[in-house]
């Protein structure tokens, strides 16, 4: 029974991290049609930030201040990445240039972590005490992540429907050309969406740092699982991402417990293929009608 609750609670906890990655995918995708391959690397950079700056016995206040600082750093970094990614699109010579530029950025980030920190696993010290529920002890980060995920989704919903900038961003996702014609400064909003995406994923990496595997090669796992979560929920749907993440998390946690850690990604891949074959628009996605 303990095992069941461990898989469930920790699965949902780590799944919430996948949800957050999925949500950060969505933010960029909605405004530009770009899926950032380096999103998992940004998440891990949030964790690296925590491992460097978070002191051993940090107070709650310090933790919150550093959370904000970390998220802001990632927001700036992703704004820069967004600017670089959108540069070649001006001439629209190569439609899929972003596939390559974001992939290249992901390789560079991995390489930089390797050069500065070596191939070792970095440790983040969680200042909060572990919780005890359903008879199992759970590190606090497994609870913080779902809270953060839900908060992020609610905040984004408010932002997209209640603020002028948010509404303009929603317009981009509906019809880019029409938005352009209506006088919306598309490029600026797109870079802003990269920054907001960095804010979300940076906060996630910082606060869930203690339950992430932070090595130069681990980001790809979070990119993939985050993508699978996004596809299950339907790309572009944040509510879907909230469901998709925990689903992936629990399933891969179950696989890790019963078969071994090396099967986690295999299970996610199988899930991805099944969804794409049978319901490519995801659980909450819309079907696009027109082709010609």
């Amino acid at each position, binding site marked *: 029974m303990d095992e069941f609750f461990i898989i469930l609670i920790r699965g949902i906890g780590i799944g919430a991290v996948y949800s957050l990655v999925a949500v950060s995918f969505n933010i960029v995708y909605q405004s530009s049609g770009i899926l950032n391959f380096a999103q998992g690397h940004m998440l891990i950079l949030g964790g690296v930030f925590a491992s460097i700056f978070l002191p051993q016995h940090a107070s709650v206040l310090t933790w919150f201040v550093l959370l904000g600082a970390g998220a802001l750093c990632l927001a700036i970094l992703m704004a820069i990445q967004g600017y670089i990614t959108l540069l070649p699109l001006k001439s629209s*010579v190569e439609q899929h240039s972003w596939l*390559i*530029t974001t992939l290249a950025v992901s390789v560079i980030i991995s390489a930089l972590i390797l050069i500065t920190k070596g191939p070792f696993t970095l440790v983040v010290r969680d200042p909060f005490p572990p919780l005890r529920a359903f008879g199992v002890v759970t590190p606090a980060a497994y609870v913080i992540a779902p809270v953060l995920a839900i908060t992020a989704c609610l905040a984004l919903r408010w932002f997209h429907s209640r603020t002028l900038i948010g509404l303009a961003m929603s317009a981009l996702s509906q019809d880019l050309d029409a938005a352009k014609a209506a006088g919306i400064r598309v490029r600026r909003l797109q870079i802003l969406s990269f920054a907001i995406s960095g804010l979300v994923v940076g906060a996630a990496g910082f606060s869930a740092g203690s339950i992430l595997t932070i090595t130069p090669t681990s980001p790809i796992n979070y990119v*993939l699982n985050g993508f699978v979560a996004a596809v299950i929920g339907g790309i572009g749907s944040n509510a879907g991402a909230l469901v998709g993440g925990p689903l992936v998390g629990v399933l891969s946690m179950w696989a890790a417990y019963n078969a*071994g850690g090396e099967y986690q*990604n295999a299970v996610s*891949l199988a899930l*991805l293929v099944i969804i794409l074959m049978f319901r490519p628009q995801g659980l909450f996605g819309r079907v696009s009608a027109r082709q010609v």
Partner: protein
Amino acid sequence: MVTGTQASTSRPYPQSKPRGSFKLAGETWIGVIFIIASILIPALSGSDYWLHIFLLLNLYMVVSICQNLLLTDAGQVSFGQGAVFGVAAYTVGIFSGLHGFPLWLGLLAGLAAGIALGLLFALPALRVKGFYLGFVTIAAATVMPEMLNAFSDITNGINGISLRVRWMHESWLLGMSPLALLIGALTIVTLIAHNYLRTTALGRRMRVAALSPETALTLGYRPGVVRSIAFLVAAIGTSLAGVLYGPLLGFLSPDAFHFDLSIFFFFAVIVGGSGRLLGPLVGTAILYLVPNVLLVDLVEYRLLGYGVTALLIMLLFPDGIIGTIVKQIRQRKTAIRPASIDLRPLLEMNFPKKDQRAAHADEPAVAVKDARRQFGQVVALNNVDLVVKPRTIHGLVGPNGSGKTTLLNVLTGLNRLDGGSVYVFGVKANHLPAAGIAQLGIARTFQTPRIFEDLTVWENLQLGLDANRQPSDEMLLAAFGKLRQPLSECWPEQLSHAQRRMLELLRCIGTGSDLLLLDEPAAGLSGEERTRFATLLRLLRDELHLTVVLVEHDLSLVWRLADEITVLDAGAVVARGNAAEVKENPAVQKLFWGERDA
């Protein structure tokens, strides 16, 4: 204008399928010389170390060529070619290294395993494309080495597999071992095969399926099938390189096939210049040799090196190294002089005397009954009836949004009806796949002409001839043959908008279809071009006995040309009849000229 002499029957039509006349492109020659030199020079100088490095480079170049084929010819973003390579390599190791089966058996098994994985990638490619496929394949490339560890009873896990094949390394000819000769031959053959594929109908179809699936469908073949073939071809080449990896290195470990390897192949194509034949060779050489020569002591910087290189190349030279060079040369050569397609060979062609196209003599070419189609709340087709008599020009007119293009889409199977039925030459076509409908003998043009910039104007035309299933069209083919010479050096960017429309129309004629559906073909044509266009259409009807459905906004052209006219408004038929009848119809007058007696 139409001369009836039989003179040109004796003149053989210049074959579009180059049997024996296949010429290697300049880039291929350079590539072949580079490959030979890369193996011969280290072999002659007796440096085992460099020979080893360059042989491995050659194997990687083979994979990159396949990646290039997949990415640019077939338009498939696969980040998983390293996994195909690795599975092929590992299977040889398991068979011949661990279990001591003879090497040839191991090689065959490796080939089969690699191809099987490559075909697995094709499976999701049938459903999804672009970044979806990229993620699926990168996930597979991540999982593959993990599985090598997970199934350590079979793969020997992190201990790896030793595979020593001594005879393959013994000096045999000019200091080269059988293995060196084999690898060199494989690289050369792969390069030439890619060059050759591009001159074939299959190669052209791959590019069309990649760039415009709907064009592929209307030319009568399924993009999914073509994509699967591309994955198959790429998997064969990649696996051939993979099975030689073990014998070359003598040792296999899971770490060698980390997903970085897949990304390396992808970047190699981009850096070299995607789409160029020589691109993958140059890209692989730079990305592999520079870190291995310059950064020997700084292994950790290797990753950074090619990440930065790929990023900079994409930002500064989006066409890649070879792509940029070729572009420079081409721009200097042809300072984009406007070109035009000479219609005379077609207008003056010798038409077959007797009617060879009597197959559909009496059947209506198109019969639409009670057609309904709704998009959300919009009723695009509201109980439309349409009968197009064979060997007539049928005008389809109406204001914007009246359902003309939807009707064409339904006729070609790109849209499906919610109710009613469609018959094409007497065959019920409601549920036929789009490619199947095209094969009944339908060709269509689009409002925005589907012209492919990377193909020459002649190759664009050839797409139609490739789809021609009527061997009896000798006259037509002969007439097209005369266009080959002037157009094979001509690129679409040299054509005006009107000329592009003409090119697409000629492509449709080339398919040998009995029914042409033309979506606003005269838009943007000058007066003189209009006259020639009208002459051509009449010729198609009277001499080739084609049926033409003409969607057009230029009403005077329609009144002049069409034998029968159907007027659509808001998805419903308002009037039908010949030009005189339709013109006098009050509903039509109201539609096009407003109320007269207001």
